[in-house]
């Protein structure tokens, strides 16, 4: 079934407006808002990881490391000068960076308003630069070996960040805090609470545009068959490096957003567990589907931090206290759900499919085909 282009466009505008209205109305301090913000941030990182793992076929596990680079750069640049002494109370701060920050804060008004965004972009660029350097040796490896190498890189980054030698910059194991919240955009037209969604939307849109471009097709060719891609004139190293650098850029931006969200970061925030969380998101969403990654980022965040919390509280039914229901039990339930997905829906929610209005309008028909027949069979049962 094909739907008219204009209808689709109207639907998209309406859906976008509804989402935006919902976000504007939501209380910025509510739990729902916090969860959705985290979902949006993880959606960026998941999409960038999917760009690498799902679309280029490079099994990389370095996400946490590149996120920490983006987060630390963003945090370092955005912490207000007046809070610096409170943050670096233990070891003091590098005078060069302090002088730079003072100069930036003394700058003209337009600079201070775009400064947080510059910080995010710089965080992304720094992550991309590190990826470009590391990519040269590491991208010659394939599959599992690449995963192990990138995992190692991520750990090295974490170790460097928390090392005493970096104390004057990263504040060592104390981490950075007093990071300002999300900035407003367009002179307050976009309130601070909506900013992460807007940035996430732009990042994901850019990645989707990339995937649908000629370069994106070359990435997919590498995923499908390296030998054939090479025989078709695709320069393997160039395109792998490109995917790795771009993915790391968006991961870095996602890390910067996470720093603004958490308001305080340290090296432990970016442990391997974070990479696994994101890997889970893309596996559940479907490796090779951007829609899947975004959907699943929200789904996983909301279920893990939201309604699964129910299992963490003691539950008493009619005077009988249900055993197992205590702090940490939700993670057990979450893991079981995850195993179920991996066992029964190996291709995730979306497989490699993407969102389209055609599919949405086709849903009623699909349900009818799937369940209607069953109902009919049940109905004529004598």
């Amino acid at each position, binding site marked *: 079934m094909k739907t008219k282009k204009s209808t689709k466009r109207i639907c998209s505008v309406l859906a976008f407006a509804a989402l935006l209205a919902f976000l504007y109305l939501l209380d910025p301090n509510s739990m729902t808002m916090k969860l959705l913000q985290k979902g949006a941030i993880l959606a960026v990182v998941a999409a960038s990881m999917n760009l690498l793992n799902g679309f280029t076929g490079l099994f990389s596990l370095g996400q946490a490391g590149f996120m920490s680079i983006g987060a630390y750069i963003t945090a370092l640049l955005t912490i207000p000068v007046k809070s610096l002494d409170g943050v670096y109370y233990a070891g003091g701060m590098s005078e060069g960076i302090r002088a730079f920050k003072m100069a930036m804060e003394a700058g003209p008004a337009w600079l201070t308003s775009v400064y947080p965004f510059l910080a995010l972009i710089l965080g992304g660029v720094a992550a991309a630069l590190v990826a470009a350097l590391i990519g040269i040796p590491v991208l010659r490896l394939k599959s599992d070996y690449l995963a192990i190498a990138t995992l190692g890189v991520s750990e090295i980054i974490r170790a460097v960040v928390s090392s005493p030698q970096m104390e004057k910059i990263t504040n060592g194991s104390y981490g950075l805090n007093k990071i300002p919240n999300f900035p407003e955009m367009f002179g307050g037209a976009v309130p601070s609470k909506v900013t992460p969604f807007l940035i996430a939307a732009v990042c994901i849109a*850019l990645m989707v*545009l*990339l995937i649908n*471009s*000629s*370069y994106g*097709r*070359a990435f*997919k*060719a590498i995923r*499908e*068959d390296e*030998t*054939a*891609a*090479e*025989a*078709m*004139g*695709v*320069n*393997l190293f160039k395109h792998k490096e*490109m995917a790795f650098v771009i993915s790391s850029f968006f991961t870095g931006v996602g890390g910067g957003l996470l720093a603004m969200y958490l308001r305080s970061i340290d090296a432990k925030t970016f442990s391997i567990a974070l990479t696994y969380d994101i890997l889970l998101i893309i596996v559940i969403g479907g490796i*090779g589907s951007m829609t899947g990654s975004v959907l699943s980022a929200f789904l996983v965040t909301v279920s893990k931090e939201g309604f699964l919390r129910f299992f963490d509280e003691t539950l008493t039914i009619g005077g009988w206290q249900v055993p197992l229901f205590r702090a940490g039990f939700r993670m057990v339930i979450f893991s079981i759900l995850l195993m179920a997905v991996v066992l029964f829906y190996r291709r995730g929610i979306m497989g*490699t499919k993407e969102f389209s209005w055609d599919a949405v309008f086709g849903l009623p028909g699909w349900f009818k085909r799937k369940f209607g027949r069953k109902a009919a069979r049940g109905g004529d049962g004598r």
Partner: protein
Amino acid sequence: MSAHVLELKDVTMQFGGVVAVDSLSLAVDEGEIVALIGPNGAGKTTAFNVVTGVYPPTNGEVRFHDRVIVSNRPRGKMKKLYAGSSRGVYTASVAPSPDRITKLGIARTFQNIRLFKDLTVLENVLIAKHMNIKAGLFSAVFRLNAKEERQMRESALALLKIVGLEDARDEVASSLPYGKQRHLEIARALATEPKLLLLDEPAAGMNPQETDELTAFIRRIKEDFHLTVFMIEHHMNLVMEISDRIYVIDFGKQIAEGTPAQVQDNPVVIAAYLGVEEA
């Protein structure tokens, strides 16, 4: 000054102690259809892989339009291990990656079909067009190269029309019937705008009727695209009908060369294929 399109000189490919291709020298001229035949394991596909840059040869040289595209001599450990029968001196070490060779104008198909299985038929051909893209990453992402993209699409669709797949363009490549997949692989190779087309067993697994169609098809694209064709094939009907010349190799070594009629009557070739009766 030779006018060969493709020329192999003493090409030897040795894996550890196994000499897969031993001092193979051959030449393919402009506009010819040349076949490389031989029993299973004779080293035909290995020879193709050397020409297309998948493996650097242990010794020897490959020229394309009289330009050295691949060249090597035994080095390092191979100096001692080397068991090839020729020792031509090829000083230059030229080992480009396969994509560079494709850009020079040599396209290939694979013995076991290697399509981009989960991508559509059209995307499969478009990927081969990516190699000549002028737009950088930025303009491709922001669709500033709409004209170029349209041209890529148009020429890809034109190719699909030639192979009779224009109606299947939005289908996933792996859903095509086997014979069509072979055709798609050839269309994809043609999309790189080659001067020389290497076909690795194009008729493998085809029935006699499909093979006949393929014979006509190869002839037609050869004329339409001004190609030189170098192919590996087991279907003798196809080989004998279509080839201008045939090279026969066995255990990596060339054992015969000539027109189909000459090769068919050559006792050495018959012995290689059917075995020799102990006297």
